[in-house]
């Protein structure tokens, strides 16, 4: 599972790396939102349950919640985004990462992680929305 990317129906992506879940939003999502103008990040140390709203992204058109794709504790934030939210538009899978989460409960997390869509499944899902 290492380094494999998974997607939620709410358009977050997750990559598990060194026991931590790296989370961002998909290219499709950033495109739909248009120019992102700001992001409201959670606090380090705060805990979120599966698919609980943990951050808010604002564009001119919309203000969207970012949902927690893996139950756990926030251990790192991409604070660059506070100054440069446009990185989410420019580089959604790399510079535009949002938080790192330490999964809480291995067993449950496994289920959450297997519920995620693969890249192919997600592309198909997005194709249907469009």
């Amino acid at each position, binding site marked *: 599972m290492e380094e494999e990317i998974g997607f939620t129906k709410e358009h977050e992506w997750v990559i598990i790396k060194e026991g931590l879940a790296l989370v961002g939003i998909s290219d499709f999502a950033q495109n739909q939102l248009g120019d992102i103008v*700001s992001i*409201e990040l959670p606090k380090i140390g705060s805990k979120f349950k599966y698919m609980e709203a943990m951050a*808010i992204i*604002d*564009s*001119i*058109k*919309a*203000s969207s*919640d970012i949902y927690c794709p893996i139950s756990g504790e926030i251990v790192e934030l991409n604070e660059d985004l506070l100054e440069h939210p446009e990185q989410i538009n420019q580089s959604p899978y790399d510079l535009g990462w949002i938080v790192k989460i330490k999964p809480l409960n291995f067993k449950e997390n496994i289920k959450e992680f297997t519920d995620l869509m693969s890249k192919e499944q997600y592309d198909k899902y997005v194709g249907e929305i469009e």
Partner: protein
Amino acid sequence: MNYIPTSEKDQKEMLKQIGISSIDDLVKEFKPPFPRKLSLSKSMSEFDLTKHMKSLALRNRILKCFVGAGSYNHYIPSALNHLLMRGEFYTGYTPYQAEINQGILQTMYEFQSFICLLTGMDVANASLYEGASALAEAILMSSSYTGRNHVFVKNGLHPQYLEVLQTYCKGTDFEFTDKIDDKTACVIAQNPDFYGNVENLLQLSERAHKAGALFITCVVEPTSLAILEPPGNYGADIVVGEGQSFGIPLNFGGPYLGFFAVKDFLLKKIPGRISGMTTDSKGDKGFVLTFQAREQHIRRERATSNITTNEGLMALASTIYLALMGRTGLRDVAKLSYSRAHLLFKKLKGIGFEALNGKPFYNEFLMKAPKSPEKIISTLINNGIFGGLDLGKDTMLICCTEMNTIQDIENYISIVRGIT
């Protein structure tokens, strides 16, 4: 009166174009049909209407006002009303189309700036309904920021404001407590308080912050800010209040002007409209409504608030008022209000009234009357003076502004002295 311009000839042509013979055909699916004429009074001509309204106005008595309590009788420069009567200002709506509403957007920006300068805060919105519901919005914001739902209110909050908070809190599941702890979302203090007391609230704000709560200052008589320390300097995270003192008539209680200012870390949670400066395609300076994505028409049930129509024209009135009065004029208002109140206070003390304010006051004060307040107030009213509010237990809340002349104060005293 008939405010419909359509001639009968035009009406016929329009019906023909639509392909029907009468307006009834257009409304036949509005069900159930109302079977009779509405039982309202007969239509009035402008002439009759004016007569009727004047007779209603004459059934009210305008008194010399020595009462504040959230509604202050200040002088309004004549130029203000002339500017406010511009149809280009008062017959438009929220400036959604920035290109044709630069005027109103700039005045909103100026209003926000005035409020920030006066309160010592970073960001202000373009207005809320009035002081009390603005304070309720501040509680909602505190809870959304802290994730907590307990509210601590310092003594001395305007009783009607407290009632409004109780209404909102019942509806929205908040609790009032007398403790400041790790459940406290916010600590609220009015300054000057309902009894006119003014103080530096630094210690209270530190207590709030230590507990992880937000500190809210509520300013109901904002002319005080011309001479008093701005709340931003003693730790307020949110300053809300009532802007009526800035150029808005008493209006029997409304429309008034809620203002709402915060430190920048709360910027994205502000309810209502905000105007921001930016540039156009040619690089020229201009203004737009900003952060609309957080508002109800886009974010619906997850919006920062349900507010839509706010008090734009009242914010404009305040902006023009502050521009006309200027730094010097506003200071004069505050100094005169302060000085008249202290003069009346001194004279009342001289005829047996007892001071009850534990702290210094600005333009409003509480006294224990040597005779029944009911009698004092009714005697004054018979002489055309609204002399104070009876707060029970022989106490009276009294207020002065620059509108109360020294002669008015002499008259007040001599009438009260004459009561046996």
